[in-house]
């Protein structure tokens, strides 16, 4: 799938997003027992998500499903962790269809954390529909996350200089309408122009519709969206949404005890933005952020400007302050060639 083979050291925002997901799960596991869970996602050749989850949580089972057989072979080669990761050759369609049996057959787990990490811009409707089917199969305690490609550049008409700007917009909207069909939320497309923000909103609306549809058929529990982000994954803009199946009677208590929040329909979508920094710049920034609470003061003391304008620089300081704790140094050291054994050790530590 597009983007799925890009190494993580080139995708720092994705890395940050994964750590934010871990933090969200940690909050949920204040209430739910984490050793009753199976973690399921696509994994990619390096099984990075599974390794991270294995390190963070006491999951008894981890399962990766991949449609590409070559990737599965690489996964099996890379699968050196203490926690055994089951690597299956399976399409997402088959996984979604067989999900109830997979959980049923898993002796170690009663609940699941599932991440449908779709990188491809093709088949958005199918991806959202698969999410909807899976959402309909959740039981209380389950967590479901979907990541979708929300790049406007993937829409036909984008960058077409042969037509005027408004015609380009019409072509892009028509393409998105055709891709999503009746999944497209009218309220969000009427009179709208296509931008990164509006496209993410439209896709979020389509996902939210599936979440509510699943909730309608759920008995005594509902599927609650709890987190949404957009970020740039190197070459694509991505949208990611996480929801949880929570018992209706225990909902208030669950949110109070975990500190998680239920997202509203018109939720603003935060973007994970991190400025590109040298190690020296980053250390200066970290020191100043520790000393000063106000971003403009940090900017004034930097001795350099992050971006073309003062406003942009202050905004970058703000972004860095927000996400600095999720950024490991290894990501910045990407140009250093290290021996394999050291890399492996570092990977384990990170």
């Amino acid at each position, binding site marked *: *799938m597009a983007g799925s083979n890009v190494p993580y050291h080139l995708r720092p925002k994705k890395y940050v997003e994964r750590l934010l997901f871990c933090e969200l799960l940690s909050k949920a596991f204040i209430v739910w027992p984490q050793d009753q869970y199976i973690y399921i996602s696509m994994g990619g050749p390096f099984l990075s998500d599974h390794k991270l989850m294995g390190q963070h949580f006491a999951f008894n089972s981890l399962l990766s499903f991949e449609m590409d057989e070559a990737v599965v072979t690489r996964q099996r080669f890379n699968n050196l962790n203490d926690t055994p990761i089951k690597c299956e050759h399976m399409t997402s369609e088959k996984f979604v269809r067989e999900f109830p049996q997979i959980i049923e057959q898993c002796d170690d787990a009663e609940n699941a954390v599932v991440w449908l990490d779709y990188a491809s811009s093709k088949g958005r409707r199918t991806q959202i*529909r698969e999410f909807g089917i899976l959402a309909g199969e959740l039981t209380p305690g389950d967590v479901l996350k979907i990541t979708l490609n929300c790049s406007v550049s993937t829409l036909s008409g984008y960058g077409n200089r042969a037509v005027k700007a408004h015609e380009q917009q019409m072509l892009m909207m028509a393409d998105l309408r055709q891709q*999503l*069909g009746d999944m497209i939320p009218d*309220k969000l497309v009427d009179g709208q122009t296509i931008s990164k923000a509006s496209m993410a909103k439209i896709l979020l609306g389509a996902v939210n519709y599936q979440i509510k549809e699943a909730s309608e058929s759920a008995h005594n529990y*509902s599927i609650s969206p709890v987190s949404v982000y957009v970020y740039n994954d190197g070459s694509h803009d991505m949208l990611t949404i996480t929801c949880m199946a929570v018992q209706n009677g225990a909902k208030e208590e669950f949110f109070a005890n975990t500190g998680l929040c239920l997202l509203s329909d018109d939720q603003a979508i935060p973007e994970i933005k991190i400025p590109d920094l040298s190690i020296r710049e980053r250390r200066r920034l970290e020191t100043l952020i520790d000393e000063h609470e106000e971003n403009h003061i940090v900017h004034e003391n930097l001795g350099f400007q992050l971006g073309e304008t003062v406003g942009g620089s202050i905004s970058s300081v703000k972004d860095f302050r927000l996400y600095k704790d999720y950024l490991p140094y290894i990501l910045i050291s990407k140009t250093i060639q290290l021996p394999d054994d050291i890399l492996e050790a570092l990977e384990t530590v990170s």
Partner: protein
Amino acid sequence: MTEKSEKVSFAPPKSLFVKSLVRDIELDDAILDLLDNCVDGILRQLRKKKIDSSSIEAPYEGFHAHLTIDESRFIIEDNCGGIPKNTALNYAFRMGRVKNGQDEDIETVGMYGIGMKRAIFKMGERAEVYSQDVDDTYSVTITPEWLSDEDDWEIPLKETDKLLSENGTRISITSLLPNIARKFNVENSNFVADLKSEISKLFSVILRKGFSIIVNGEAVKPKEVLLMAPDDACADGHESVEPYLFRAKMFNVDVELAIGFYRPLASAEEIDGEQIEKKTSENAGWSIICNDRLVLYADKSHITGWGTAGVPNYHTQFISIAGVVNFKSSDAQNLPLNSTKRGLDTSSEIYAVILDIMREGIRIFIDYTNKWKGRTEETADDFKGLTPRKLQDIVKRSSNNQTSWTKVRKLKDRSEHAEKYIPSLRLPSKESKIVRISFTKSKSEVDFLKAAWFEDLDHDGISASEVGEAAFDYCAEGLREDEEERDF
């Protein structure tokens, strides 16, 4: 043997109305019935003021209905004039309509007198109907105790103080049934969002004419059926993509009909995709409007002529065809409506006549679609410069060129007037130099060629048909070069 004079009881149990009647109607239809009542109220107001709604662009301007829907209550409040006390005492709360002479000369759709009661029983066990008109202000309260009492068929009408800023009705339903409360929970259900979408389609004409429907604080925007038409409609004899039109007055009903394309023809790939999963067919098909209410939306069944009398069944390739018929009558009984008011009475005489016209119109666009099948890209120019237009606009614009309309002979005896406009669509010349090739290959083979020829390593940017075309060109060019070398 002496004959004993005993009587059998035909009296209905209350549960027939409270529990059984509600099963015949979906929740959204029950709510739409209440909105219909608001519109009927507006028409009565207009009649009082002697305003002819058909002669004004926005006759419903200033009228509104506010719906408040959540898991604990349903409230509809309008400023459409209220229910006169006499009507409330004698008719409005009866189970079924009693002939009383009212509304006989206005274009309402209320016929059976069950809408409000059925909607209340469908949703909850407690309701208050509050009404305020020029003369009276009163409320009627339905309670769970009254609902369960089989013998009590009366409820006190209480006179109250004025509560509303304008004359109208406020129906408040509480003690919602559990299944209804779940649907009304906007956090966990799409019902309210879907209802808004339904209203935007079904009340599109009424909304356009000025009526304002606000659901949970948000105004609903009309979503009308639009057909593509050129700016200069009815250019005599010129080939252009424009709708087939029909208009008539028959059986005391005014009829306007248009059918055409609402979008350019679908490509072969889109059709293939649609066959795997229905995505965008939603707008194709026939929509029927009766007295400004949409009673059928984008129908593709035999009801609207598909798959009957030589018209093929609806197929994805006809995804671009849409039609709309507008029936208007001051006597709702003349309209081809069934009891739910959201369905057609297909056995009515007027509908049988119009169905024939609908079939004639649709054949023109089916023919065009079939003739250009596999060559849809050649029709792109036909659609350039066309604008999506409403039925009324199309008919109005076309009326300017009266010479293009022809009388419908076969309807001469059955109508005051009946005429149609038949467009002239460009069809391909018979000697086509292009043929369509279609074949299937394994995905891995196609991906291999994508990577080899287009460097599309993620197999995302290039379609299978582009790979097929490139393979054909590669093969043909190679053979031609070989041939040239041999000749040389």
